[in-house]
């Protein structure tokens, strides 16, 4: 079935002119494990076929949910949305005239509980990204997927790929096995900082932890809405554990996290830090200062209040014009018209920072 909307890509908003644009969140999907076969050792290829594993999919974006895919983003030849370079060129790079787009592959390495197999799959996904996406398309950059369940192996995988200029970020799932500030994860941050890579925390993870702090919800709606709680917990952990004191050059990007919750979190965090900071003496500045310096957030999906002015006020409450990174979240269906890609009513200089400047300062393009 062909949706008529798929053939029209009117392009950028006229007010942007020729301004630089970087799309900081474009999802690529591994259609099936067969795609990875050329990048796996024979031992793991046979392991997959002998055990009958066809896909590793925790269904963060269920196939039938409208939000999961823009109409026309699935290749006609089969395979999931976000698995075809031609469509990605047309629907992201050309449509928005993007200087760069950052690929985030949500392949759930965290669902694999065998550390060696997890590393083998991560390596395969990374080599597949390098060969089939980065090599043919110079406007693309990619994120390194890692077996976060074993941070030493993860750091080694980061080191292996660090010299490849196409990789600009390391991905961690927001639903990790533990709060991401914990020292067990520090080898990952050390490697990222060593190589000038951002750490991207994406809206996924199959560690077994529910998306909410109170257990498993019943509905996809709850799962989707409550994921911002997991992001909040990770931000509080990263700051409180002193990750940014230990790794002062580290940048963390929250991907698909939303951002309207952040001002209130910073108010609460600062206030309670004043009374409890003796617990975390390495947090030597108000947490909001640390957050503004080290944290970046992608713009889609946007939380949209009925009155657009309220969203602009919330962005002003962030207290910093450097935090938001333009993102379409392709191929997820987060907005209907070009106007919907960003909040309306931004001051032009802020809009230009969001479109590209912030990304250019965050990533090693």
């Amino acid at each position, binding site marked *: 079935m062909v949706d008529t909307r798929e053939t029209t890509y009117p392009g950028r908003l006229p007010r942007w002119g020729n301004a630089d644009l970087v799309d900081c969140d474009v999802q690529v999907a591994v259609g099936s494990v067969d795609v990875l076969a050329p990048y796996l050792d024979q031992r793991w290829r046979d392991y997959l076929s002998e055990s009958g594993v066809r896909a590793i999919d925790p269904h963060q974006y269920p196939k039938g949910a409208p939000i999961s895919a823009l109409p026309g983003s699935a290749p006609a030849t089969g395979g999931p949305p976000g698995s075809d370079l031609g469509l990605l060129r047309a629907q992201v790079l050309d449509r928005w005239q993007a200087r760069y787009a950052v690929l985030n592959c949500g392949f759930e390495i965290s669902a694999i509980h065998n550390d060696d197999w997890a590393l083998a799959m991560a390596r395969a996904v990374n080599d597949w990204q390098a060969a089939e996406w980065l090599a043919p398309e110079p406007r693309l950059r990619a994120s390194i997927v890692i077996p976060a369940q074993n941070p030493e192996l993860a750091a080694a995988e980061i080191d292996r790929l660090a010299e490849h200029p196409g990789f600009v970020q390391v991905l961690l799932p927001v639903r990790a096995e533990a709060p991401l500030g914990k020292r067990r994860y520090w080898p990952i941050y050390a490697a990222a900082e060593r190589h000038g890579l951002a750490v991207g925390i994406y809206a996924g993870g199959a560690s077994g932890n529910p998306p909410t702090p109170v257990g498993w919800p019943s509905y996809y709606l709850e799962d989707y809405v409550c994921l911002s709680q997991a992001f909040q917990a990770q931000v509080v952990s990263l700051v409180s554990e*002193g990750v940014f004191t*230990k790794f002062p050059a580290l940048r963390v990007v929250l991907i698909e996290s939303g951002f309207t919750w952040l001002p209130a979190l910073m108010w609460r965090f600062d206030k309670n830090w*004043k*009374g*409890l900071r003796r617990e975390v*003496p*390495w947090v*030597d500045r108000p947490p909001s200062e640390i957050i503004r310096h080290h944290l970046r957030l992608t713009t889609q999906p946007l939380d949209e209040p009925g009155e657009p002015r309220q969203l602009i006020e919330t962005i002003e409450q962030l207290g910093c014009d450097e935090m938001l990174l333009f993102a379409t979240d392709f191929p997820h269906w987060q907005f209907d018209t070009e106007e919907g890609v960003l909040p309306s009513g931004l001051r032009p200089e802020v809009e230009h920072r969001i479109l590209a400047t912030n990304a250019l300062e965050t990533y090693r393009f």
Partner: protein
Amino acid sequence: MPKYVVATVDEIPPGQRKIITVERRSIGLFNVNGDFYAIRNQCPHEGGPLCEGVLSGLVRSEMPGEYEYVRRGEIVRCPWHQWEFDVRTGQSWFDPAKTRVRAYETTVETTTSLATSDADLVDAGYTKGPYEAETYRVEVDQQYIVLHL
């Protein structure tokens, strides 16, 4: 500057405190390793009874996992919101630029020195006369804490 005898030294052993009321002000009197300090028992934040809070130190750190515990027994934390103040100076150490609590001078004096001090009479406008009655030495082993309001 009026002076008030507010406690005996042995009432407040090192590490202990006494809350007193002088001229309708509630004041905390602290013994820090044998030295006595007094600060207003009213937190500048929300007016909490600051001097009833935990007496502790401050923790410094350059790096996660490293702790340097300093000024033990010299920092009082308001029981309401845990704001921290130096009992020796009233200085706040959570937000030093903005907050300080009133500190008062204290001295330790003996019965004799208190009894032989002329300051209050001079202050009251009296002039010493030419005569001096015979006096006898009285042994005292008590010391008093004097608050200078």
